[in-house]
C-alpha cells in the first residue's frame, strides 16, 4: 500500500455517511416496531438494537478482516485472522482503487452495512422469536453469511501495480452493485424467507387482525431510513465527488417515485392510498435504487422507483398465497426490491453517466450486463437462503428459536423483556 495523502473532503463525507448509516438501524427498529402490535413492539426494536451491539464487537475482533482482508487471496472470503484495527490507524484503504480516506473511516462505514443487514431479517419473525436465540443467530449469521457475501460483492482487492489480490467473486466479475442490492437486500430477503419458514406462522395469522400499532412510528422509521440511505448510497462513492452527487439525486427521486408507485397501486386496487403504503413504497424504492444508484441516469431512477413501488405493493400479498408468515414483508420489499434493482442495471446501466459502469440493454450494451447481474442475484439468493435455513433449524432444534404459545399470546415484550412499551397517562398500571 502506498501512503496516500488523506483528502479531508472525501473523509468528511465518509465520516458523515457512517453516522447516517448507523442511524438507519434504529430507523429500521421504528419502521418495524410501529408495524407490530403494541404488545411486541419493544421486542421488535430490541432485535435491531442488539444486532448493533453484537456485530460491532465481532467486527473489531475478526469481521472486518473476514470481509475485506485480501491476504488469503480468496474470491469467497477475506482473511481469517484478527481484524487488528487498532494497529492501522494511519494506514489507508486500498480496496482496488485509491481512496484517500483513513482506513478506520472505511472500516466504520462498512461496519454499519454489516449491522443493518441482519437487522433487516428480523421483520420476518415478528412477535414470536426468543431474544437469546436471535442474538445467537445474528452472531452466526454475520460470520457465515454476511461477512463472506460482503467479500464477494464489496471487496475489490489489493492492487499492487497491475495485480489485484483478494478481490471478491462478484466484484472481480464486474457484477454491478453499487451499495448492496445483493449483499444487503437480497441477502436479508432470502434469509428472512428461510427464518419465516423455520419459525412458522404466528397464532391467529390470517384470521386475527394484526394491525400496526403506531403509523407515526412507522413513518418516523421510514424517514430516518430515507435520510440515512443518502449515506448508504451516496456514501458508497467513498468520496465527495460527481458520482456521489449522481447517487444522491437518484436515491431521492427513486424513493419519491416508489412512494407514488405504491400508493397508486393501492388507490386503484383498494380505493385508498395509505400511510403504510407510502412508507413501504419509500423503502421499496430505496432498496431498488441501492445497487443502481451510481450506474443509471436520474430519469431511469424515476422509472426504477415507480416499478419497484408498484411491484412490491403487489408482491407483499404473495405470502398469503404461499402460506409463509413473513410478518413485515422482508421478502416482498427487500428481496423483490433488491432483485428489481439489480436486474434494472442490466437495462438502464449507462456508461455515459458513470464511466466505470457498462451499458445496459437500453443503451445498446446487449444482454451481457444483465447476465452478470442475474448471476449475482442467483448466487446470493441460494447461498443465503439455504445457509440461513440450516442455521435457523440448528438453533430451533437445540435451544429453540420460537417462544411458547402463552408468551406469544400475552406478548413477547412482557415475557422476553419484562416491560411494556407504553404507559399512557395510565392510571391503571402505575402511571399515576
Amino acid at each position, binding site marked *: 500500500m502506498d501512503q496516500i495523502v488523506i483528502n479531508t473532503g472525501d473523509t468528511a463525507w465518509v465520516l458523515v455517511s457512517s453516522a447516517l448509516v448507523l442511524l438507519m438501524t434504529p430507523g429500521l427498529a421504528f419502521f418495524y416496531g410501529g408495524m407490530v402490535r403494541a404488545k411486541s413492539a419493544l421486542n421488535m426494536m430490541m432485535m435491531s438494537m442488539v444486532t448493533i451491539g453484537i456485530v460491532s464487537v465481532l467486527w473489531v475482533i475478526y469481521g472486518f478482516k473476514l470481509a475485506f482482508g485480501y491476504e488469503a487471496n480468496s474470491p469467497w472470503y477475506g482473511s481469517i485472522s484478527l481484524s487488528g484495527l487498532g494497529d492501522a490507524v494511519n494506514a489507508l484503504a486500498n480496496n482496488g482503487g485509491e481512496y484517500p480516506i483513513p482506513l478506520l473511516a472505511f472500516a466504520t462505514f462498512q461496519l454499519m452495512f454489516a449491522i443493518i443487514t441482519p437487522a433487516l431479517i428480523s421483520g420476518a419473525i415478528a412477535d414470536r422469536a426468543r431474544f437469546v436465540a436471535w442474538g445467537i443467530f445474528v452472531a452466526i449469521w454475520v460470520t457465515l453469511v454476511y461477512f463472506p457475501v460482503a467479500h464477494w460483492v464489496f471487496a475489490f482487492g489489493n492492487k499492487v501495480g497491475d495485480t489485484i489480490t483478494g478481490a471478491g467473486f462478484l466484484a472481480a466479475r464486474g457484477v454491478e452493485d453499487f451499495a448492496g442490492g445483493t449483499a444487503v437486500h437480497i441477502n436479508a430477503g432470502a434469509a428472512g424467507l428461510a427464518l419465516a419458514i423455520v419459525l412458522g406462522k404466528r397464532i391467529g395469522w390470517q384470521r386475527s*387482525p394484526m*394491525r*400496526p400499532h403506531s403509523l407515526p412510528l412507522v413513518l418516523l422509521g421510514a424517514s430516518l431510513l430515507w435520510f440515512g440511505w443518502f449515506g448508504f448510497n451516496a456514501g458508497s462513492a467513498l468520496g465527495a465527488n460527481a458520482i456521489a452527487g449522481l447517487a444522491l439525486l437518484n436515491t431521492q427521486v427513486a424513493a419519491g417515485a416508489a412512494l407514488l408507485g405504491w400508493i397508486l397501486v*393501492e388507490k386503484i*386496487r*383498494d380505493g*385508498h392510498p*395509505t400511510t*403504510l*403504503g407510502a412508507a*413501504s413504497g419509500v423503502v421499496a424504492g430505496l432498496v431498488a435504487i441501492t445497487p443502481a444508484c451510481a450506474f443509471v441516469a436520474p430519469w431511469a431512477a424515476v422509472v426504477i422507483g415507480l416499478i419497484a413501488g408498484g411491484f412490491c*405493493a403487489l408482491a*407483499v*400479498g404473495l405470502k*398469503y398465497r404461499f402460506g409463509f408468515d413473513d410478518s413485515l*414483508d422482508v421478502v416482498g420489499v427487500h428481496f423483490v426490491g433488491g432483485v428489481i434493482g439489480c436486474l434494472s442495471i442490466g437495462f438502464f446501466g449507462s456508461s455515459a453517466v458513470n464511466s466505470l459502469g457498462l451499458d445496459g440493454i437500453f443503451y445498446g450494451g446487449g444482454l451481457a450486463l444483465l447476465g452478470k447481474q442475474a448471476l449475482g442475484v442467483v448466487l446470493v439468493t441460494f447461498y443465503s437462503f439455504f445457509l440461513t435455513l440450516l442455521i435457523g433449524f440448528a438453533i430451533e432444534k437445540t435451544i429453540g428459536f420460537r417462544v411458547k404459545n402463552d408468551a406469544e399470546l400475552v406478548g413477547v415484550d412482557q415475557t422476553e423483556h419484562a416491560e411494556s412499551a407504553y404507559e399512557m397517562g395510565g392510571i391503571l398500571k402505575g402511571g399515576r
Partner: protein
Amino acid sequence: MKLITAIIKPGKLDDVKAALREAGVTGMTVSEVSGVGRQGGHVEVYRGSEYPIDLLQKVRIEILAKKENVDALVEVIVKSASTGSIGDGKIWVTPVEQVVRVRTGENGENAI
C-alpha cells in the same frame, strides 16, 4: 335512587353535558366504550389486507338520580343526543340501593 346509563355518540357528549347541566344535573361519570349494533363499522386496509373494524367509538354516561327525576332526565338525554341516524345509542335505568359520598361518608339521596 336510580342509575341512568346512556351510550351515545362521542360527538354528542358536549351537547348532552350542556343539556344535563341545564336540567340541574351537576355530577356524572363518563367513560369510553365501543359499541356493536345495527350501525355498520368500517374497513381499514394495511398493505392490502383488510381489517374490518366493527366496534365503534361511543361514550358511556352514568348518572345517579332520584327516582322522580329519572324520566325527565332520560327525556333530556334522548333529545340532546339524538341525530336521527343509526347508532345514536341506548339508555337504560337500573335500581340503586345505596349511594355514599366518599369525601364525607354521607349516605342516600344527599350523596348524589
